[in-house]
């Protein structure tokens, strides 16, 4: 059987190592392709939210993956849930948002969950995702957010030094 080809679309280089390690642990047979577009995080921060232009860019990235023979797409940056959701009806292969699988797992295992984040826009986006997915599954889930600003400052320093 041909190895499934998974396109990973990243908005920050920091996501590459953790997902590569997770594939090595959980599914080493898959062929993984990395597409890094690191102006997405920067533009989201500057625009203060998802613009129409940003949504169109996500669709363009998804089409590119399909043209490149992807069997599935995984978006790895967690602050773009709505833009990714909008791509799903137009794209014939499975598209996974970064948090989708974890939230499904949490819904089956817990009734009260702590969510930790180091990038502030992620809190708003992931809390909405938890709420939406809990409602859709008909399960009651209480979600308590924890934000760690020091970690984000550390991340930005690291990015700066790398550039």
């Amino acid at each position: 059987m041909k190895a499934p080809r998974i396109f990973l679309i990243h908005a920050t280089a920091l996501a590459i190592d953790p997902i590569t390690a997770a594939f090595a642990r959980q599914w080493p047979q898959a062929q993984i392709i990395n597409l890094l577009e690191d102006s997405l995080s920067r533009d989201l921060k500057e625009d203060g939210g998802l613009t129409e232009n940003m949504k169109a860019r996500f669709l363009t990235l998804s089409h590119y993956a399909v043209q490149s023979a992807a069997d599935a797409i995984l978006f790895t940056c967690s602050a773009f849930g709505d833009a990714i959701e909008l791509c799903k009806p137009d794209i014939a292969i499975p598209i996974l948002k970064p948090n989708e699988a974890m939230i499904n797992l949490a819904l089956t295992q817990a009734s009260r969950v702590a969510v930790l984040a180091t990038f502030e826009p992620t809190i708003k986006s992931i809390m909405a995702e938890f709420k939406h997915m809990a409602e859709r599954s008909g399960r009651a889930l209480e979600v308590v957010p924890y934000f760690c600003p020091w970690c984000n400052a550390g991340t930005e320093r690291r990015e700066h030094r790398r550039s």
Partner: protein
Amino acid sequence: MQALSEGNIEGHDAAISEMAGQVGACDLICFAQFSMTSAAGQAEARSGLPVLTTPDSAVLELRRMLQADDFISSQGWIFT
């Protein structure tokens, strides 16, 4: 450069696990970002709670989805 980077990751992981230690009355902890995954083991030890990470959950889900597709198409092939 490598040492500096590793030093920062240690600090990053320590800060996350410290925050995990402050979590009370929850069944489990979810990390909201891929970049936090390296802190999972430490955060589990510190909090005494299971930690779910997005990358591992996502890879397992993709594997399940695509292998289910293979199963369906191979069944289809057998019967056509």
